[in-house]
């Protein structure tokens, strides 16, 4: 079954390159430039992984992650935060809120794809187990 990645990012060119890369790698892709719309979409469609920009309009990345982790069944959805270089405090906060990894802009496509693949390989079983407990 095709795995899906949701991109929560408001910069259109970054969304375009990520979309291209993910589709080439065989993933289903959905993207939103607004935090609120992104959260609604995640809750409704439960993607396999979320790429989350911190500086989002609507709901920012921190609040989105907090709400996402508080939603039953989404507490273990892999989330990769997209952050800026030099913002160590932001990265730390994202990890504390439950992000699984972060990549620093400007990121290397290859590094990003490796992280996505690793998280999806690792998260598949644990998420299924978690889903069994909380959604069942």
């Amino acid at each position, binding site marked *: 079954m095709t795995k899906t990645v949701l991109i929560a990012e408001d*910069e259109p060119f*970054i969304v375009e390159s990520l979309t291209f890369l993910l589709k080439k790698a065989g993933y289903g892709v959905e993207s939103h430039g607004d935090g609120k719309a992104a959260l609604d979409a995640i809750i409704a469609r439960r993607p396999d992984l979320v790429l989350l920009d911190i500086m989002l309009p609507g709901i920012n990345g921190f609040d989105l992650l907090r709400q996402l982790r508080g939603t039953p069944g989404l507490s273990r959805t892999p989330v990769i935060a997209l952050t800026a*270089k030099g913002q160590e405090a932001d990265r730390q906060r994202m990890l504390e809120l439950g992000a699984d990894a972060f990549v620093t802009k400007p*990121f290397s*496509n*290859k590094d990003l794809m490796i992280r996505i693949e690793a998280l999806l390989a690792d998260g598949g079983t644990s998420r299924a187990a978690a889903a069994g407990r909380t959604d069942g």
Partner: protein
Amino acid sequence: MARLPIGARIRDRRREQGLTQSALAAAAGISASYLNLIEHDKRAIGGALLRRIAEILEIDVGHLSGSDDARLAQDLVELARSFGSATLPEDSALGFVARFPDWARAFVHLHRRYRESADAALALSDRLSQDPALVEISHAVLTQVTAIRSFAEILDSHGDLVPEERGRFASIISQQSDELANSARQMLDLLGGTRGQVRSSTPRDEVDDFIIAHGNHFPALEQACDHLRAELTDAGADLAAAVDERLAGRHGLRTSVAAGLDRAQVQGDRLLLPEGTPEASARFLQARALAERELGELLDGLTDDPRLTTEDSCAGARAALARYAAGALRFPYEAVLETAEALRYDVDRLAARFGGSFEQIAHRLVTLRRPGAAGIPFAFLRADPAGNVSKPFSISGLRMPRLGGTCPLWALHAAFASPDRPIAQLVEMPEGERYLFVARRVTKGSGPFDAPPVAFSVMLSCDAAYLDRLVYGDAFASRATRPTPVGVNCRSCRRGDCAQRAHPPILPSAPARPGAAARQPSAPPDLGDARTLRDSSQPEKRRILAS
């Protein structure tokens, strides 16, 4: 403090002047063998003999006695401490200054340049972290770089792109590159704008150095002001009225009061004073205007000094000298000295007697340094309510903080809470020296109700040895009176048990315990309150930024 090699100075200077030992001894009225002992530092010299020898050798007494060096050594010690070199004792600094005065000055100069750079870095760092426009541009730059990198990698690593994709991605890269160049230009524009705003501390330091190098005393100005005053009051005229008349008659400058001004200014043929300017200030400003006009050449000559390296420094020194001249003109040297001794330096009474303000008289007292007819040596300092220090005049012994704020325990700061009368304070420095501090809150006239009042605190200080000559010393005459333990500023203060500590000391607490945590000497355990904890983080940040 180490004894200064006065003898060597006398010998060097004598040789420079081409005098033999016996010739100098004869001129000074002492035997050649006694001079020989002095030159080899086997006999102490001071007072009248030192002054006589200085006169014969045509050199400043301060240079011979080494008080210039003492000041330079203090600057060195202070700057070394500001870098955390706590082990540099004052004695060795004095020895260093005595042997290598030019190197010592070079160090102080270098440290000033460093402070300027650190200030500039702090200003820019504040700007970078707080300016929303810069934050926005930085975000845009990051976004553009991210898109460019990502698409460049795609073009590079995906050989199977269809022509439309290839064209589309290449055009995104090109477009984002243009945007990136735009962002860079905007950033340069913003940063370029800060250049003029970064304040350099050099001109003020240079003016301070210039004035202190003259021992806070300018004989040529005193003499010129005496002549001018004698001329003005020749026919028994009132000085203030004569100054007013002379300004109008000879210089076409008339004084009037103008509404809406926040400070005095000259406009065309008018000296305009703000409404509510006190009489003493008005008279002083007129005297200053007259001094600028009649003693211009003398002021130019005095400020033609290698210590003043920039136009700003020269202008600052000229303004300081014009204020000096106004004081010298308004408050005659001999009369002020005589009355001060008679009134036991009661500044408020002196102010009433001479028609001056507390600050003007305090300032005048500092300048009473004529060899042979000197008053008590005073240091002077002025601060605003936030503790920003200005107009510092130091004396030998008492270090004036030149690298940051003062000790919060000084009367200088308490004076703001006592608006109607001066505060006297007997203090003891960490090394044991005692000083008498006298501070008073002063205001700049009565401004309009809707404008904030402009207030300063003015402080005189002198060695506690003069206690009995000052009216302010009476309260401390009893041996039972304990002095207030203070420092110069927190950074250089070793007192570990001070509840007012705002910054951690750079020096370890004295006496240092074996194994005491020299890395974290900030607050003793009993002071671990919220204020101390909060404040201790801030200087750390500043130090990191500044280093």
